[in-house]
């Protein structure tokens, strides 16, 4: 079985254990295994854009250096980890001054900008292939109307993330189709849920999350899927009658590896 270096992130160890577990189980079912990298540290949740923020990026660079040393793809599942690590990777590649500052801190773990950071979704699309995913589906989700919720972190800034068309993405919709379900496209799928501002200003986050869910509901979605624990929290906290689940949970369910409770 093909082994892929995996960066889980702190939330997947605590509040978002489902996101992690189902990702691993689904990977096994699809013929690859997620190998947690050694001694990883929290990515910090958000990317600090300032050029002189060095220390806050070191944990991501360490993960990148590990993948580089082992000549592996660095796989992420959480949108936030993916965004932070990918943006850090981009800064290391394109800002030589920043890179030399960072590498000065990292004695044996310097990074030279050659690792390949991939989100789990990208791995399914580009390495496994959605066609192959579809073939492994045992519990087709036929008839279920699912809205993909991208939020901001997977897509923006597009010049760095390069995952999909940032204004009209299809990667999650294609996965939904592969699982036999019906994707529902709604206009707020790439609008922000309110993010970490929720901690201080719950009202602000509520306003944004409600618009997202209303938009999905109006378009006819029964379920909304996300790759981000914070999106899930914000949406669920303000949820109406639309269920919010991790995309990995849906995947595991379709692949028949979710466990017995729903089967």
């Amino acid at each position, binding site marked *: 079985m093909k082994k892929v270096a995996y960066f889980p992130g702190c939330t997947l160890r605590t509040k978002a254990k489902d996101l992690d577990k189902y990702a691993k189980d689904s990977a096994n079912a699809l013929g690859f295994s997620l190998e947690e990298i050694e001694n990883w540290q929290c990515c910090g949740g958000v990317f600090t854009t300032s050029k002189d923020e060095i220390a806050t990026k070191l944990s991501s660079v360490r993960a990148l250096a590990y993948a580089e040393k082992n000549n592996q793809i660095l796989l992420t599942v959480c949108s936030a980890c993916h965004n932070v690590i990918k943006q850090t990777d981009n800064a290391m590649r394109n800002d030589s001054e920043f890179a030399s500052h960072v590498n000065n801190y990292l004695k044996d773990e310097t990074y030279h900008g050659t690792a390949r950071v991939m989100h789990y979704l990208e791995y399914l699309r580009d390495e496994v292939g959605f066609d192959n995913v579809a073939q492994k589906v045992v519990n087709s989700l036929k008839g279920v109307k699912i809205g993909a919720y991208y939020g901001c972190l997977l897509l923006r800034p597009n*010049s760095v993330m390069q995952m999909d*068309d940032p*204004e*009209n993405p299809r990667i999650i919709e294609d996965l939904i189709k592969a699982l036999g379900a019906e994707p529902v496209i709604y*206009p*707020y799928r790439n609008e922000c849920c309110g993010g970490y501002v929720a901690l201080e200003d719950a009202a602000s986050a509520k306003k944004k999350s409600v618009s997202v869910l209303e*938009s999905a509901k*109006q378009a006819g979605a029964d379920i909304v899927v996300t790759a981000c624990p914070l999106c899930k929290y914000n949406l669920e906290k303000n949820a109406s009658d639309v269920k919010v689940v991790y995309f990995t949970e849906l995947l595991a369910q379709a692949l028949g590896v979710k466990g017995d409770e729903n089967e």
Partner: protein
Amino acid sequence: MQRIGVFVCWCGSNIAGTVDVQAVSDALKNEPGVVFSTNYQYMCSQAGQDIIKQAIAEHKLTGIVVCSCSPRMHEATFRKTAAAAGLNPYMVEIANIREQCSWVHKDMATGTEKAIILGKAAVAKVNLNAPLTPGESPVTKRALVIGGGIAGIQTALDIAEAGFPVDIVEKKPTIGGKMAQLDKTFPTLDCAACILTPKMVDVAQNENIRIFSYSEIEEVGGFVGNFKVKIRKKARYVKEDICTGCGICTEKCPQKKVPNEFNMGMDNRRAVYIPFAQAVPKVATIDPNYCTMLKTGKCGICSKVCTAGAIDYTQKDEIIEENYGAIVAATGFNPISMDKFDEYAYNQSKDVITSLEFERLTNAAGPTAGKLLRPSDGKHPHTIVFVQCVGSRCAACAEKGKEYCSKICCMYTAKHAMLTRDKYPDTEVYVFYIDVRTPGKAFDEFYRRAVEEYGVHYIKGMVGKVFPEGDKLMVRASDLLANKQLNIQADLVVLAAAIEPDKSARSIATMLTASMDTNDFFTEAHPKLRPVESPTAGVFLSGTCQGPKDIPETVSQASAAAAKVIGLLAKDKLTGNPCVAQPNELMCNGCSSCERVCPYGAITYIDKEFRMPDRTTAIRRIATVNEAVCQGCGACTVACPSGAMDLKGFASAQIIAEVDAICK
């Protein structure tokens, strides 16, 4: 041995202020070959020129050195002077002792010393000069216009009017271009078809004009006055000379699901079609990508209904070769793709359209017969949002938009907004703008009328995102003057898409060896003083292929290009540059090194018979230069391994003599 005269100019005090002109003329008197040397206040004046003429006669001069200003200034003047006195003009050399000596040095001693050396170098060169005669080439009195939009039409009509034959090559089945798709034209609001179609008819009826429609340029060879062009006349599977344009085939064709490009894909046409009622030539064309007969061999209905018998499924592309004296590029523009701007939801909603699509929606001959109806449900829109600068003035990333201003959008948006309010006063119209740019005769007045008389809401700000919600479009925008974020529930959103040169322009430019800028607009020979000529001799520019412009500007430029073409075609012969490459037949070994580096394809090879020392003859392959094609760059002279190739006027021996004189 040459008999050289040296003439040192003071240029008033311009030279004499920093150079001791007497010392220069004295010093040069003793150079080899010099038999006369003098100086004068203004050599270029009539009196100065007379001194030169007189000296040529008196001293039987065979060569002349003028120590004066830059040759770029007065070389031509002194060559004419020499010619008037019976001397070959190419026996004149200029020593540039003004721009490159007196003006850049302050000290009299150093200036004088340098002027003497520059003079010596010129004398050394003239000693090796030979009389040169420029070649002449005839001018083919026929012009080619590439592109049959309003630019190409106007250029062709003007050239034809002057009595020269013109061919228009148009890749679409009809001429007319983008203007044929427009509804009304700003700022006078006359209908585009009413002013364009009579011109199209003029083109069809003009005896001096041939139209090659549904045709493309395949190959361009030759040079100014003598271009040789291959034109691919694509198979339209209809005999052009027999088809009467009755249109029965286009009604009976069973293949009804072909997106109609003339209506921007907003309705369908048949596989056999005439783009629009006033098409020129009014001849049907079969689209091979959709025709069932051509694809499967089963159908043939159009052939059965054609009473004229014009349908020919076996037609093949035809290559036409023709010679031209001048070529005009009039390749036009297209709106850019909206794929990279989906924050405006163009790909997510049928009711988000481009301005050119809006033109078709309001055009009486369009898919809605001129009624403004939403593409999604055919309902009358009550709130319309226009977004300006979509992809124009966009410097964020190259693959997204264009850095330049597309120039026409402010005016056509004002037109669209005004016409909408005029015809449907119950409609609220919003225009989001960054700047309103209306330089042009009666343009700003036009825009103000849209605001003041027609009540169009102009809002300074930009639309950030369009959310398709149900059958409405939620437009989120900024109103910068009010410092507000607006949410407008619209029925229709119209995007003023940036314009870009037609995609075919680049390959045509390559064939013409005409240069382009980074945006693929053709570059002009001089941005101010030669705006309708390309830097390549004999190639002229008309319309938007050179840069964004509206119809009045396009037509002026088209006529200007025609004037340049007429000026060229009016000549019987073109005088070439005599400073061209010349191979030494005895030294050439036919290796082809020169041929490979020649940017103009001026070098070919011939087999020539040579008498050998032992009285036998041998056939050897040697290079020959087409003097009319050679531009005299000299690339071949360096590539030649045997030193056989030389450049007249800049011979190796001459340049080495200059080097020696300078390094002495």
